[in-house]
């Protein structure tokens, strides 16, 4: 792992579905608001590389995985519930 001390996030989507588009928008909004300058987002379209779904154990779409800081965190859904996202990412204590 790199020495990156911010949040490394990866969002798995499947094509341009409404839920995917909403998830991307919601994630960006939350990060800008709560993690300005301390985050990086990678968006993975499983339609283009379905093997990644197997490798990364993706079942639900969209799935957000916090790769850093460790441990790995997994959030599913379009991220419309901001509270749950913040708790899930350990940005705000439960």
């Amino acid at each position, binding site marked *: 792992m790199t020495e990156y001390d911010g949040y490394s996030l990866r969002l798995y989507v499947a094509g341009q579905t409404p839920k995917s588009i909403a*998830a991307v928008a919601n994630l960006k909004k939350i990060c800008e608001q709560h993690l300005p300058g301390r985050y990086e987002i990678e968006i993975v379209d499983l339609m283009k590389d379905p093997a990644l*779904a197997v490798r990364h154990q993706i079942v639900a779409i969209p799935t957000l995985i916090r790769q850093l800081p460790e441990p790995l965190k997994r959030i599913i859904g379009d991220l419309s519930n901001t509270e*749950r996202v913040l708790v899930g990412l350990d940005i705000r204590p439960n």
Partner: protein
Amino acid sequence: MRALQAVRAKPGDLPTIGKSPTGIRGLDEITQGGLPQGRPTLLCGSAGCGKTLFGMTFLYNGAVEYGEPGVFLAFEEQPQELIKNVGSLNYDIGRLVAEKKLAIDHVEIERSKIAEAGEYDLEGLFIRLGFAIDSIGAKRVVVDTIETLFSGLENEQLLRSELRRLFEWLKAKGVTAVITGERGEGTLTRYGLEEYVADCVILLDNRVHDQLSTRRLRIVKYRGSAHGTNEYPFIIDEQGITVMPITSSGLAHEASTERVSSGIADLDQMLEGKGYYKGSSILVSGMAGSGKSTIAAHFADAVCGSGQRCIYFATEESPRQVIRNMRSIGIDLQRWIDKKLMRFSARRPSLFGLESHLATMYRDVSEYDPAAVVIDPMSALLGAGASGDVHAMVLRLVDFLKARGITALFTNLGVVAGDNAATEIQISSLMDVWLLLYNRESNGEHNRQLYLLKSRGMAHSNQVREFILSSEGIRLREAYLGPEGVLTGSARLAQEAKDRAAMLVREQEAERRSRELERKRREIAAQIEILQAQLASEEAETALTNREGVAREDQLAADRVAMGVSRQTGARPDKPAAKPTNKPKKRLDSI
């Protein structure tokens, strides 16, 4: 199966559904070809009843036997675990995976590690499944157990709609799918999967009765196809899954006029001199130690001796023990095993229930294709079944064997000689030949007797025969009928000794008479000799007398001459007249 496809291929004909064979012995018969092709089948049952193994077998057979690659979507087990678990059945899953004939994808869902924030769907699962199917061109899919999703994810309503979508999607993909589900309380599956899978539902069950578990399978529904509706016992062992189909053909089997030897020449004699009918069922019943196994071994020996295969189901003794025991009466079964004409199948009756035993037998018979089977003893198995099932199950076995033209010899242990136990009554009516063996006590000893109670379709002997076990096997002795019935053992020997004594007396009498006759003959011969001697002496006497007479005449003549001479000249006066009479006297003494 092929017929169905052929019909389907013709446009305009009545449409019927195609079937995808499972390759599971017995199941394809019950379903008349297999699972509905291109449609999902729901396989439900409680934990440990063989759902995963069933699914894996379906895929394995598809890949190996039918050229249909398959995908196993595992929610519960890791691929390595799965491969190991079925490795004991000689399913080389690892090789199939390497050859791209099988793909395993393990789906890991743990509620504690997943937070839900907003709406989602299971597109990820679809993508994975689609990827796996496309990567190997899969025709078969097993999803085991999809209900795990319900414990891993919160939104049950969403899951339900997604599952509905999954089944539609599988159908659209044209894959034959098996979806497993846990048995629920009062429902087939805990989360009601049967609502979505409407084409075929199979229920697996593992019930325990008297501490013996019996696995059963039932086709709950099969849309668009006739199918057996009963509960069918099935077994899982080192050779995979075997379902015992209960054939509805029942009494449609051929009745052969061909004969097979019982292996005992004397017994064949009682059966019109030819033996049993091929494909008939023979019941040999008797109490302990009456020689049932020996009759069974003779039969097996004869079958193998004619170059045909035989399976010996030993339910009480180990094969080695049977072989050893039979060697002591001069039957060498080992040579048939070495020649691959005979196979022993020994299983403790208490190992599992009657139905499972029958399923095992069905499997062994289908695989080995013998001309005859021996089940020794049947009674041990009967104890393993709930009483009501016994008749039905034996009927199934008998039907199955008859349909294949296999001659079957069952031995049955009765407690007392001639004791018609309930089970015996139940099964004896299914039998074509019923041999009763008695071990009767009389004069302080037990003697074996054999009686042919019935033998359908032939004029059989009605005699009770004594049979003797010797180092040359069984010999039947001619029935010895005395004033008090059949005599056996020492009573028979005593009677025979008596007969022999009487015979001896008769012989001696005859000898004495002939000796007497001889003596008389000699006596008479001696008398004849004496008489002949008398006759000879009388003849000699007569001859002498005659000669004396002549001599006297001569003398008289001579005297007359001498008198004449003396009267005239006195010629030869010195010759005495007594001399000639002395001579004949000497001759008489010498006789």
